[in-house]
Every structure is written in C-alpha cells, then in structure tokens.
C-alpha cells in the first residue's frame, strides 16, 4: 500500500506501540497488563508497519524470523517454570528477589513470574506475526 499519510502516521505509531507494549508487559504484575496483552500490542506495531511498508520490510525490522521469536519465548517461559527447581520448590512456584530491600521498603522486586511473562510476550508476538505475515504474503 502506498499512502503518504499512512507512512507518516506509521513512523509515529510503531514506535509508540512498541514502547507501550513493553510498558504493558512490565506493569502487568500488579495492575492490568502483562505478557499476553503486551505481546498483542507489540504485534500490532509490526502489523501496522507491515501494512504500510510491506511484509518484507517488517521482517527486516524484526531481524529474526517470527517463528523463532515464538519458540525462544516458549523456552524462556518454560525456564521460568523450571527455575523453581533450583530453589527446591514445585514447578511454577514464583521465585522472588528483592533488590535493595530494607525493613520497611520492598525494594525492587524481580521474579521468575516476570521471566515467565516475558516468555509469554515473545510467544504471542512471534506466533501472531507468523500468522499475519503468512496471510499478508499469501494475499500479495
């Protein structure tokens, strides 16, 4: 599709969508959001880019094939679940690390739950892009 308005708008939108998707991913633990919705928003960014500039460009922007993104995400998610084993817990028990925690402050909480969410993010991003790219390329 060749439209000046779309191209100009896309530049702005894609950046916004990608940043927003990471924001959604990170705030997901205590407030609405998370890996799934973040992945969807991130995928929307690339899809918009693909509509404006073609899937070829979008694939280049992603750098790695979307299927690989999804599979790596699956690996990360699984790893997060298995991590509990190193601490002697059952599968998928959240492991927490509070950086700089004091008596009253919780500090910066890092957890295997977040790692799992990042995995979900990548799976969703990768699989949706795989399917939409396949559809768009088929339509050309």
């Amino acid at each position, binding site marked *: 599709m060749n439209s000046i308005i779309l191209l100009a708008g896309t530049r702005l939108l894609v950046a916004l969508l990608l940043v927003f998707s990471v924001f959604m991913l990170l705030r997901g633990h205590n407030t609405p959001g998370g890996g799934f919705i973040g992945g969807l928003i991130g995928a929307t960014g690339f899809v918009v880019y693909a509509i404006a500039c073609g899937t070829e460009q979008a694939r280049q922007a992603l750098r790695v094939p979307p*299927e690989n993104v999804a599979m790596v995400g699956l690996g990360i998610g*699984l790893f997060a679940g298995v991590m509990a*084993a190193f601490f002697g817990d*059952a*599968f*998928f028990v*959240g492991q927490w690390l509070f950086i700089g925690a004091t008596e009253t402050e919780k500090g910066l909480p890092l957890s295997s739950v977040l790692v799992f969410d990042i995995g979900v993010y990548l799976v969703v991003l990768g699989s949706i892009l795989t399917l939409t790219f396949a559809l768009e390329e088929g339509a050309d």
Partner: protein
Amino acid sequence: MSWILGLPIIIPFFTAVIAFLTKERPSGAWWSVLGSLLTLIAAAALMVVVLQEGVVAAQMGDWPAPFGITLVADLLSAVMVVITGITGLAVAVYALADIDEAKERLGYHALFQVLIAGVCGAFLTGDLFNLYVWFEVMLISSFGLLVLGGSRAQIDGGIKYVALNLVSTIIFLTGVGLLYGVTGTLNMADLALAVDQSDQKGLLTVIAVMFMFAFGVKAALFPLFFWLPAAYHTPAFSVSAVFAGLLTKVGVYALIRMFTLVFDHDIGFTHTILLWVACFTMVVGVLGAAAQQDFRKILSFHIVSQIGYMILGLALYTPLAIVGAVFYLVHHIVVKANLFLVAGVAQRLCGDTDLRKIGGLYKSAPLLAVLFLIPAFSLAGFPPLSGFWAKYILVKASLDIDAWFIAFIALAVGLLTIYSMTKIWGEAFWKPHPEGVEPELRAIPRAALIAYLVPIAGLATLTIIIGFFPEPFVQFAERAAAQLLDPSDYIAAVLGGGT
C-alpha cells in the same frame, strides 16, 4: 516427587525449542531423537515410582488441590506415558529417514515434540480444564504436522480434521463450563466426590453425554469418526504413525478416565450408549476398511474399528472388561504405529500406497514382509501375538455377563480384520508388481534403511514380547483396572495434600 511427574512434559517442550532453533542444520533431527530418548527414560522412571508407591500427585505452583493444577499418575497414566515415550522414540528415529529437508526446515521436529508434550500432559493432568489446554496443545501441533508441506490432499484433509476437531473442542469447553456450574470444581478427584454427592443427577448425565461427544470425536467413535479416514492418509508417514498410535488414544484415555472416575453415577444409561457406540464403531470401521484399496486408508479405517474394542471394554464395565480395555489400548498403540511405519517403507520402495499399483514386496523385500506380518497378525488377533490376548480378554468379559451378541460382533469384526490384512498382504506383498518392478531394500541408502527398520523391528519385538509373555502385562492391566474401578487411592493422592 513433583519432578518426576513434570519431566515427561517439560523435556519434549525443551527439545522442541532446541530442535526448532537447529532446524536448518542436520543436527536438528538428532536433538529430536535425544529428547525422545530422555522422555522415555523419564517416563520409565515415573513408572518405577508409581509401581513402588502407588498413585503419585503433584501440585503445580504449590497451590493446594482442588484449587491449583494437579499432575497425577496412576498405573494407567504411567503406562500411557511410557508407551508414548516408546512410540515417540521409534517415530523420531524413523523420521531421520522419512522426513525430507524441506519439512525439517518448516519445523517438523519441533511440532512433533510439542505434540508429544501435549499427549503426555493429557495423560498426566488431574484437572479437567488443564486437560482441555493439553488437548489444544496437541491439536495445534497436529494441525501443523498434518498440513506440513502443504500438498493439495493434505490441505483438503486438514480442513476436515480442523473443522470437526474444533467443534469437539468447543463442546468439551461448554461441558467444562456446565460441570463447573453444577459442581463448583474442576479437579477430577474432587469432581468424583462432588458428582457422588450432587443431587442433580439428570443434569450431570446430560453433561456426561456432552463429554462423551467431545471425546468421542477425538477418539473417532461412530458416528463421529469421519475426519479420521479423510485426513490420516495424507501427511508424512511418521506423522500418520504418531497420529494413529497416540492421538485417538488420548480420546479413549479421556473417556476411560472420565467414565470410571467422574461419571459413574448413571452407568445404566451412559455405558449402554457407549456399548452401542462401540459395536457400531467396530462394525462400520472394519466394513469401511474392506472397501478401501489404499494401504494407509485401510489402516486408517482399522483405527476406527479397533477403537470400538477399547470402548467396548469400558462400556461393559466389569473388572475383566476394563482389564481388556487397558491391555488393548497399550497393544494397539504399538501395533498400529508400527503398521503405518511399514506402510512408509512400502511406499518408499514401490512409489505408491495404492494397492492396485504396488506388489512383489515379499519376493524383493522378505524382511519387510516378516516385519509387516507380525503387527498385522497381532492386529487381527492371531495367537500368540499381543492382539490375541487383548481380544480374548474382551470376548471372555462379554461372555462372562452372557452378552453373546457382543462377543459375536467382536469375533466377527476380528474375522473381517483378517480379511483386510490378507488383502494388504496379497496385494502389496504376494502378487507380482503390476509393472514388473522389483523394488529391493538395498535400493534405499544404508543409513536411511537402518533408521527405517530399527524402529519397526523394535516395535515388532515389543509386540512379540507382549504376545509370548502376557502374564506380567495382564497382571499389570488388572492392577490398573482395579485402580480405575476403585478410585479412592487416586482421590486420596490428589486431595491428601501430597506434593
């Protein structure tokens, strides 16, 4: 304890990731073999634990049952996981020769491993909604495997497979929703208690029939089996074999689990339906097979027919019949997967699976002929192979309760099975090749030949072992059936707070 239950699911998933990232290299297929081997070891370890300690259960994320997701293994689950491991390993080795580079690049090995993970998950879960999730994992990977390569026949078969399986999935999901509405729980052990105490038996029976429909599609029961012969002969032979061996059996397993553990409140109604369905499935499947002229299509229809035997065991619902169902389930996975593997070699040698276009295999490849005869005779129920004992137990179980008619059908279907097997034998092996070609095993490169024949010979050996030494297997099936009919151990293991 929780480890041993999770490993048969986790290992294939990790293997899938590695196999996918190495799909462009020749090592990708070997990762799949290694992963399958590790899965089999993990499954065997699980079996040892279950044999020693009885039913074991683990709670994911340490959420106590019935609130969290439970993984649980009794003897039936354990043996199913072991047999999944064996079939998975055999097919992974076979795939070294069968799957070409183009399919590997599309991620065949990763999809295959995800499928195995889904199957193991379905066998091990103790939570109904989680079972739904595993069904979906299986379904998505099987969709991918089925249309991998994208030939016209594959896409055609794929559409029918996808459409009917999606309908079954949604009925399953609706059933889950309604069951939750009536009982307020989805943990299977907890459901068993809740269904016993519930006073809405009529409603529960309706829900039970919904589950029967949903699992019936998966298991390819009459009259819901039409997707199976439409799709199973189209993909690569490795894919056909693993589908034929495992996928429908997950449906059978789910039926056995649900209709012994949860829905045993109105046996007179639900199991009578199952009995009729089983008889029709046996007869229609075998008649369908008799009309076919293609190696794989005949085998596909036979899956349907044989599923009927397993459901017959469940439907008769006597201790001996359940023993027969469990025994049949295990025997059939090995035999049917093996037959599809043999069909793959035959196709490689003769260039087709249409029986009218091939022949002469006995003369040119006698080893393959022997390897075909073992599973084929076992399927038809010739003594002393595994299929004979499986059929014998089921027929004995129906005679014990004076169900002459049922026993007659089971025997007649066995006879027709022999007809189909001799048809394949006569056309593909006995008669000369119509175009005078004499395909020899030596035509296949040595490495590929080993990858083809080792799994076939391994599974055939297993069939012979089960056939000649059935005693320990029958005893095992008896113990498994006893656990199924008296689920108190199962319920105690899940709800007793064991981690």
